[in-house]
């Protein structure tokens, strides 16, 4: 693995160099343009090659990142996850994303890094999801349309081991987006109620699913993971959303690729393992045949 990382780091470094040179040429061109403004637009002569060189570098970087996912991460994932499937170019379907019932409809979306498999016998699927809302601004100069991301992170769908009536959502600073008649419910733990808002269509089910142990596990999970955390328990599924404004499994430009940064990729997989073991999803004693 070490040799492979070194190979990718070298390739990455040469692409970064190209991006730096392209940026420097573009900057120099702008400076020359300002300095030689009285002599015409000659200063801009370096701008076009500079931008092209930089854009080529960025495109190469994207390709390298994809190659890294296919050649390095896919191997790690298949070792870590039973029946693991990792497809960087696709993601969860929009139906699955909205089935979580904690995300509002997006005006623009992007999904990638699909990952599915089994951990401790528990089926899961997940992917990176980016959801954006369209904003329209009317100014003196006309109308400006722009998009603002309100969710950028990972969505997971797990098999849930308890059957219960109704629907349940445990959300950090959010509310359900569904036509179901969700009602806010307060549980016994003051800390839990402070951290999460619990919505359910059946109060008994909320108390049935959210045992004191599970509440503690959800709190511990929230503590260990940055960003806003959303859980929803719908039919036989547990949906988990981590809105951390992070693009998972991506190589970072100008950040060295070494064992420690590689560990961060692995940590994304430990999150899945954490959910399964901490939330005891691998315990099937409550599942009726």
């Amino acid at each position, binding site marked *: 693995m070490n040799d492979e990382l070194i190979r990718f780091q070298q390739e990455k470094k040469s692409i970064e160099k190209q991006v730096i040179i392209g940026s420097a040429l573009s900057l120099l061109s702008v400076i020359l343009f300002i300095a030689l403004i009285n002599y015409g637009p000659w200063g801009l002569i370096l701008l076009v090659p500079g931008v092209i060189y930089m854009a080529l570098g960025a495109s190469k970087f994207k390709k390298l990142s994809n190659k890294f996912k296919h050649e390095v991460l896919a191997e790690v994932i298949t070792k870590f996850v039973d029946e693991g499937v990792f497809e960087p170019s696709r993601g969860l379907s929009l139906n699955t994303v909205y089935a979580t019932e904690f995300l509002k409809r997006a005006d623009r979306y992007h999904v990638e890094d699909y990952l599915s498999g089994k951990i401790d016998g528990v089926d899961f699927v997940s992917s990176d999801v980016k959801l954006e809302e369209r904003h329209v601004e009317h100014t003196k100069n006309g109308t400006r349309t722009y998009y603002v991301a309100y969710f950028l992170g990972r969505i997971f769908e797990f098999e849930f081991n308890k059957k219960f009536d109704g629907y349940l959502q445990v959300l950090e600073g959010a509310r359900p987006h569904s036509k179901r008649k969700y009602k806010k419910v307060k549980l016994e733990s003051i800390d839990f109620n402070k951290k999460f808002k619990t919505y359910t269509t059946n109060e008994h089910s*909320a108390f049935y699913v959210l045992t004191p142990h599970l509440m503690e596990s959800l709190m511990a999970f929230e503590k260990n993971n940055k960003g806003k955390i959303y859980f929803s328990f719908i039919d036989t599924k547990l949906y988990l959303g981590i809105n951390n404004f992070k693009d998972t499994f991506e190589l970072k430009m100008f950040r060295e690729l070494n064992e420690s940064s590689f560990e961060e990729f692995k940590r994304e997989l430990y999150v899945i393992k954490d959910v399964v073991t901490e939330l005891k999803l691998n315990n099937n004693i*409550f599942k009726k045949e």
Partner: protein
Amino acid sequence: MDPIFVVIIIVVVLIVFPLLWYIGVMNSLRQMEVKINEAESGIDVALTKRFDVLTKIVNTVKGYAKHEAETFENVTKWRAGLPKTLSLQEKQEFMGKMDAVQSGINIAVEAYPELKAEKLFSNLQASISDVEEHLQAARRLYNSNVSRINTVIVTFPRSIVAGMIHMEKKEFFEADTSKREDVEISF
């Protein structure tokens, strides 16, 4: 300002607003009381389910542990089911007794390992775990509702309304461990 208008404002401030507030608090207390009753019937359902599954388990265990049959008579005397007129205190006692029978069964299982291997028994054990989780959920929901209404009853100024409608603090549903001693389990 017109004196009649001033009088109307005073009447609204002194009578209508407090009256509306009184009605609002009274209604919310009544609604909370209904919630408590609903939660209590949830406990009844869970207790009955637990009783049913426990009876089946006892019958299965009897086949293996004939000597213990007498001990399980504590369960069979409730065979008619959970009486509807039971008070909360009696329900707590009932739950305590079932806890004791459950502990007895667990000890019997340790003594007869072949019991664990029996499919019917392991299915029933899975059922009882689920039923117990439901009972715990019903108990926690009930106690959570009781905690909410009790907070209103003791908090000024809503405590005034609670006093006026003679609403008293509600009792929590707790497993009465002392009552478990009523059932003697000796193996």
